[in-house]
């Protein structure tokens, strides 16, 4: 009896302190699922690096906006030569790095040259492949010359990998990132959290938050109680599978946005019997996308029929190409001489979309007598066995890079798919700048992939954000991996 009283008293006290803290709040704890290996976006591929630093600590010449548009950033404006090969950037003045160093055109040249150098460890070197040379015109002007025109150059310069760093701090950015952004790095408790503080001398529009903590919560299981108990106020990348736990709670806002993540059932096109078109098509017919989306993604996410996000302007709806049709699938298998079905493996990387989706797909393919052995793998093994060595039958993965339909034309890519007709379309695209023609070429490309049933196209990975209902200004979608906090504030 006495114990209960004490407990109650403690509870009241806890609630009281929690409420008083709400007045004029300027701090925020954001949950992120993965810990960044380090904090230098120019030296690693991990999305987690960008989820902490992009637009907050580091800035580039341009930046990507909440809806995937290209916006000026450190470059206040630019001009493009008529042949499309020379870009002249006009830079903001009075910009300082967090360590007090002045920002100038020299830093831009340093950063771009460093990224494309021979020994560069930049994870996206192809972004800079078109650059021929970088010239400093004056401290506030930079001229970039390309070897050939590149439609996506300004977009490329908005990637996290292309941010501008200072020569003084470039080598130490992994541990102590120094950029020009509105927040400066404060501390990193490894395995636990990363703290940023408002930067005193930010050149742009002032931000609202004083202190931001990125708390690392790898398990969806831990995320829910952390959110419910108020320890963490925002999960911009929430596991869709857990949404049901909070969606009816008025304290929280659930925001579903789009990503560039085409979630697909990847097929090893050279591995018999998957080298037979009928088999791949049979698989496509056997898949029930609605059940997969309901079961693996809480009903969130749009079905796709080819490798293109429905939010993309080049998107063509091909979801009707392979309706869920078990009889048809069985017929195709019979044509392929596999009326008794066959066995295969399904290697699943850790994310819940893969693990849950895999169970459902295995159950669906069992209906057409394809028996899948599920082999869960860690990312390291997946990259090694599936991606590099192509030692797999089937796998599920989300390709989150934007506009990446060209991967099907890459030599030795892990799909083991080679179609000269498709390769030609992609090659033509590189050289075509006419919008109408491009649109047509993209449509062709999508159609070829669908017809060939290269992989099982499942759905567009939703970006589910869950945060405190009083929080404003977080991105709804994720055109690039980022947690842009420049406009985030607490409502009273």
């Amino acid at each position: 009896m006495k114990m209960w009283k004490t407990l109650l008293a403690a509870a009241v006290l806890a609630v009281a302190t929690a409420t008083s803290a709400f007045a004029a709040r300027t701090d925020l704890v954001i949950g992120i699922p993965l810990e960044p290996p380090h904090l230098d976006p120019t030296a690693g591929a991990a999305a987690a690096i960008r989820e902490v630093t992009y637009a907050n600590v580091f800035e580039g010449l341009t930046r990507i906006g909440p809806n995937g548009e290209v916006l000026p950033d450190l470059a206040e404006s630019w001009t493009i030569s008529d042949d499309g090969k020379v870009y002249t950037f006009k830079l903001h003045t009075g910009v300082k790095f967090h360590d007090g160093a002045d920002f100038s055109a020299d830093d831009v040249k340093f950063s771009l040259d460093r990224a494309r150098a021979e020994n560069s460890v930049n994870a996206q070197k192809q972004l800079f492949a078109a650059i021929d040379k970088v010239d400093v015109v004056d401290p506030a002007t930079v001229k970039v010359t390309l070897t050939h025109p590149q439609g996506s150059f300004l977009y490329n310069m908005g990637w996290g990998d292309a941010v501008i760093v200072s020569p003084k701090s470039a080598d130490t950015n992994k541990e102590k990132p120094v950029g020009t952004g509105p927040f400066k790095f404060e501390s990193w408790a490894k395995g636990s959290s990363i703290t940023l503080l408002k930067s005193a001398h930010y050149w742009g529009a002032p931000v609202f938050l004083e202190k931001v903590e990125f708390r690392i919560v790898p398990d969806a299981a831990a995320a829910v109680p952390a959110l419910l108990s108020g320890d963490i106020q925002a999960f911009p990348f929430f596991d869709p599978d857990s949404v049901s736990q909070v969606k009816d709670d008025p304290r929280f806002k659930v925001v579903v946005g789009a990503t560039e993540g085409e979630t697909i059932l990847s097929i090893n096109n050279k591995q018999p019997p998957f080298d037979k078109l009928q088999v791949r098509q049979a698989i496509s017919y056997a898949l029930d996308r609605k059940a997969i989306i309901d079961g693996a993604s809480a009903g969130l996410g749009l079905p796709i029929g080819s490798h293109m996000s429905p939010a993309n302007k080049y998107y063509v709806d091909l979801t009707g190409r392979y309706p869920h049709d078990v009889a048809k699938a069985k017929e195709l298998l019979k044509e392929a001489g596999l009326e008794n079905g066959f066995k295969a493996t399904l290697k699943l990387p850790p994310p819940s979309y893969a693990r849950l989706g895999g169970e459902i797909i295995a159950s669906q393919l069992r209906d057409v007598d394809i028996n899948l052995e599920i082999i869960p793998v860690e990312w390291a093994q997946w990259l090694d066995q599936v991606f590099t060595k192509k030692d797999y039958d089937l796998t599920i993965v989300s390709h989150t890079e934007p506009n990446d339909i060209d991967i099907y034309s890459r030599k030795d890519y892990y799909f083991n798919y080679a179609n000269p007709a498709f390769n030609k379309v992609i090659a033509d695209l590189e050289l075509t700048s006419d919008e109408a023609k491009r649109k047509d070429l993209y449509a062709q490309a999508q159609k070829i992939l669908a017809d060939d049933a290269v992989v099982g196209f499942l759905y567009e990975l939703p970006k589910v954000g869950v945060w405190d209902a009083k929080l404003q200004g977080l991105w709804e979608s994720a055109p690039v991996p980022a947690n842009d906090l420049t406009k985030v504030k607490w409502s009273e």
Partner: protein
Amino acid sequence: MTAYLLKRLAISLATLVLASIVVFAVLEILPGDPARLMLGMNASADQVELLRNQMGLNAPLLLRYLHWAGGLLSLDFGRSYTYSVPVIDLVRERLAVSLPLALIALALSTVIAIPVGLFSASRRGRAGDTISMGAAQLGVAVPNFWFALMLIYVFAVWLRLVPAGGFPGWSAGIWPALKSLLLPAVALALPQAAILARVTRSALIEVLNEDYIRTARAKGLPYRAVLWRHALRNAMIPVLTILGLQFAFLLAGTIIIENVFYLPGLGRLVFQAITQRDLIVVESVVMLLVAAVIAVNLVVDLSYAVVDPRLRSRQ
């Protein structure tokens, strides 16, 4: 005694060396390339090879073992592949969570278990004994991670008394830090306390059947005095053994609990490091844990001698 001590030390060292070879060999056959993992899907084979060279992954096996083992001796554990900071720094940060957690859990389980064991042993066969040992049986049977889940939903989500997980760091102040270790410590301690209580009880019952207990009773000491002055100390040896095992278990076996509460402890570090193929971290932490187990065993062995004078004069 000195000879015994030296012999024990020598055996411990030999075990450590053997363990280091086993650890190194096991991790060699772990599939997955750390360099590829660091660079991601878009990097070329050349880039991966470049990084492998930089990380020293292409050196001959023996050389790498000697380099690593030599480093261990001088407390230089190398640099983490994924974090690119010295492993020793990582370990130090994580120990600041795991060590207090293990100690609190151990203290908690001892404080609960010993009195329950004493109570139960002295009321052998009566209702109090049956009830407390029934509870202990239940405690042994509950998986600690399931218990942890239940605790979170009751105390963190429903009652909101303590955080659901995470660790604010000692810099946030002693109390908030301790508060966030409270639930994990309870989740760890209760099943351990159940085991310890059972061991305490049976050790005491064993001792209470000894002749010298009768001698003490024949001196006119009341039962309670005999229990405290004569029985408890003699029953300490099995209890100490279990305590030693538990400390080792708590330091290393917290992997699951640290995952449930997303505490940045040693257990989670090594779990993550395995999945991320941060081999150097795995190797170092496993060695550290093995060393801790061996050291604890040594300490337990020596504490036997403190408890039992017969062992002080053995070889």
